[in-house]
């Protein structure tokens, strides 16, 4: 049986390598650039995992029954909870269901793939080292993608300015990162109990050892990547030639993604704090590493993240379907525009002249205008909230939809106040202590500065949202969502709670709107159409309602992916739509659903009592809640 397993895993590795080679020949890595390997390895590892999990499902019942007795009977396999604190302290990344067999297969497959790639690369290196001219060979193949895969630009090969050493270094680096990634993914999600149930593991390769290795790999990955990004950021280092920009983008994305991995894998306490800091560093480094275009896309993405987080309070936490969320975004943007652009309506300039202020200079800078924009948006939220207090469900959606349109039409038609369709031009840029940001960071472009601001704001908003959600206000919101009448009879002040949700959500939209106005420089009423609301709502749903991490992923998928897919040009919208459809079939609750949604969308008989302490938003809760864990597994087994 063991022999069978090994054969299977090696086969899987070969298949994976074949797939990778095919992708190379088709030319995908050439478009994505040199960071292809870690990304592809991650994807491949995920595919393995899905595949193995399906295999596991076919033989669930007999295997589990046997497993529960077999684990006790076998001498090498007495793994109680107290024997393995390492795995118990970590929060599983992927749901249960991975068995030891799967672990083993994934590992072997990942290693095989990595090894094969390393061999191929060293053949190339050897060829270059021996003076063989590679380029004609590659030309006959598909345009130099193999070179791109291991991180050397076609130009460099053409000019033969590639030293075998650096080539080898990069090959090893990427192969290593790929193996690390595969290792982390396949082992990261495993639960020791599941591994212990399967008696198919080789004796000398114990589950705790594999798990520990996988955990360490997962922890090491972001550090390695970050170090590499830092290296890239050093002056004079240009590793990837024409692909430089893309590589940097992907590297930072992979670094933060693996940082999230590591965060889940790390033990609470010091280890987790270190990983969090590294993760934060990785994210904060992005604006400095990316080029102008990427920064501008990411800036927009994170403006949408801000909106998504705000809308999530209204829709996800309080359960009030708001389709007119763009209204507050517009209010924030126009408030800042009024305060900082040279244009001002006759009304305002007359007022200013009365007050002896020159109407031509901006009234307030970005930072002074921030509280004003937030406050105006919050007031807008309350003004919308009051009339819809008694409305529920569809009716609420329609009224809010109307409100969003009213604000847009107001901006469009109140020409004297808002300059109508001509918009407000030359909105001033956010400064840093009165200086342009370029004065401080030579590295940071103006778009990078917007992105950085959006990042920081998103982080602040996320913290506020998570904390509010885990406080008594969050419980009141959720109770209200579950049963409004009972919530009121239990002591929740409905009016206050609803208005707070609207006001807080609107405040964040106002912040986002202000940053958006600064980013756009010129704003027009058409910027604030219904589609902004729909996008904001869609990114929450795609990402997972109620889950801040999901919202970031949703925004990346919805606002970022179409830009990344520009390489595929005319097919990009089709590809994007297909991705969305697949997503909704595979993960109907969103990419990273909050634990509560999972409760709702999975049939109750399929699962035992779910524990609510494994989601990202629950991280701040007291560890006491984790006592629930034993309720999951053992009781279910006894029942069967």
């Amino acid at each position, binding site marked *: 049986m063991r022999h069978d397993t090994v054969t299977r895993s090696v086969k899987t590795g070969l298949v994976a390598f074949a797939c990778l080679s095919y992708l190379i020949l088709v030319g995908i890595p050439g478009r994505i650039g040199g960071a292809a390997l870690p990304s592809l390895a991650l994807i491949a590892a995920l595919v393995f995992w899905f595949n193995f999990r399906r295999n596991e499902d076919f033989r669930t019942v007999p295997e589990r029954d046997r497993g529960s007795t077999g684990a006790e009977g076998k001498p090498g396999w007495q793994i109680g909870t107290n024997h393995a604190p390492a795995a118990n302290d970590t929060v599983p990344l992927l749901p249960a269901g991975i068995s030891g067999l799967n672990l083993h297969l994934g590992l072997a497959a990942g290693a095989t793939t990595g090894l094969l790639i390393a061999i191929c690369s060293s053949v190339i290196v050897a060829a270059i080292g021996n003076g063989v001219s590679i380029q004609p060979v590659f030309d006959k193949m598909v345009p130099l993608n193999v070179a791109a895969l291991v991180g050397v630009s076609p130009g460099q090969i053409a000019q033969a300015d590639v030293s075998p050493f650096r080539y080898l270094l990069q090959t090893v680096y990427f192969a290593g990162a790929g193996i690390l990634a595969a290792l982390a993914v396949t082992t990261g999600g495993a639960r020791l109990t599941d591994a212990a149930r399967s008696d198919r593991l080789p004796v000398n390769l114990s589950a705790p050892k594999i798990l520990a290795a996988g955990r360490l790999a997962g922890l090491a990955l972001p550090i390695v990547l970050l170090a590499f990004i830092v290296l890239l950021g050093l002056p004079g280092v240009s590793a990837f030639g024409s692909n430089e920009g893309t590589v940097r983008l992907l590297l930072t994305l992979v670094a933060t993604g693996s940082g999230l991995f590591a965060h889940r894998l790390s033990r609470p306490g010091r280890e987790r704090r270190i990983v969090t800091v590294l993760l934060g560093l990785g994210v904060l480094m992005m604006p400095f590493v990316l080029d102008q275009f990427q920064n501008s896309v990411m800036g927009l993405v994170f403006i949408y993240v801000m909106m998504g987080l705000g809308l999530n309070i209204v829709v996800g936490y309080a359960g009030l379907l708001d389709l007119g969320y763009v209204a507050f975004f517009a209010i924030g943007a126009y408030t800042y525009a009024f305060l900082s652009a040279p244009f001002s309506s006759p009304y305002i300039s007359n007022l200013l002249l009365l007050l002896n202020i020159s109407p031509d200079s901006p009234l307030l800078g970005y930072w002074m205008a921030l509280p004003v924009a937030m406050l105006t948006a919050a007031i807008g939220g309350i003004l919308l909230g009051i009339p819809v207090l008694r409305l529920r469900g569809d009716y609420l959606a329609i009224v809010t939809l109307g409100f969003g349109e009213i604000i847009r039409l107001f901006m469009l038609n109140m020409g004297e106040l808002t300059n109508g369709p001509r918009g407000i031009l030359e909105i001033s840029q956010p400064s840093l202590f009165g200086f342009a940001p370029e004065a401080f960071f030579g590295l940071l472009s103006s778009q990078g500065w917007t992105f950085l601001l959006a990042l920081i704001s998103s982080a602040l908003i996320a913290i506020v949202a998570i904390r509010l959600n885990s406080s008594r206000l969050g419980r009141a919101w959720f109770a209200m969502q579950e049963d409004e009448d009972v919530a*009121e009879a239990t002591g929740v002040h409905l009016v206050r709670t609803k208005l707070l949700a609207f006001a807080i959500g609107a405040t964040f939209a106002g912040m986002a709107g202000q940053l958006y106005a600064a980013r756009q420089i010129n704003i027009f009423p058409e910027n604030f159409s219904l589609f902004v609301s729909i996008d904001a709502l869609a990114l929450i749903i795609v990402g997972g309602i109620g889950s801040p991490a999901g919202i970031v992923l949703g925004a990346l998928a919805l606002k970022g992916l179409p830009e990344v897919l520009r390489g595929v040009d005319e097919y990009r919208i089709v590809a994007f739509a297909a991705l969305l459809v697949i997503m909704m079939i595979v993960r109907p609750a969103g990419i990273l659903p909050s634990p509560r949604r999972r409760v709702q969308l999975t049939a109750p008989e399929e699962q035992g009592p779910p524990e609510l302490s494994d989601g990202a938003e629950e991280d701040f809760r007291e560890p006491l809640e984790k006592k629930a864990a034993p*309720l999951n597994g053992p009781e279910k087994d006894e029942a069967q």
Partner: protein
Amino acid sequence: MTALLSIQGVTKVFGGLTAVDNVDLEIAELSISSLIGPNGAGKTTLFNCLTGLHRPENGEIVFDGRSLVGLRPDEITERGVARTYQNIRLFGRMTALENVLVGQHLRLKSSHWSAILRTAGQRAEEHAARESGRELLEFVGLEGQENVVSTNLPYGDQRLLEVARALGSRPRLLLLDEPAAGMNPRETDRMMELVHRLRDERDVTVFLIEHDMKVVMSISESVSVLDYGKKIAEGTPMEVRSDARVIEAYLGPEVAVQGSAEAVGK
């Protein structure tokens, strides 16, 4: 014993139907009282009037010396009246402990700013709330279940959880709407014991609607009977049991003529 709750002439009309018709009631402090009556007699409607879900057209409801009429449900809860529901209405996707924490909502005072800043005071309050929530779960017999999502609890436990949630607001008067409905005899006994302990250990006055006559007769100190929205009888269980009008309401006029008091006791 003074009257904790006194209801005078309360009338609630839905369209042409007078669901509660000029009802007078007094609930003594630290008593266990029952409200019985055939289906559709207006018992739950009366509860809804007491807790502010309905506003009575007429009449006065005085709790602890102050009128409850016209107050919002949450204000009434604040005054110290809590309730459970006939058809269980828990916050389904929340865990047992979270349900109880929502019950405590009114008694938690930390501001939302302190929640954002996670001040020491807020954390201490949250911690205390969790502790007392756990303690309440233990009190009703749900120890160890705090992290179970409430829809996944067995039926009887869901009823117990409703009691725990109601206790979260530290009520002085607890209205139980058919606490033993659908329970097996063992669960019913547990519920009855709980009702006694509520009064004896928590100083909560209990007013309950119940159809199970065994429960009503054995735990209540006074029983009121509603029929077609009108109060038709009141008194100790023994008195009510032998009241001709009650028997008529439950079993129809012919049986009442036979005067079988035992029929009600069944």
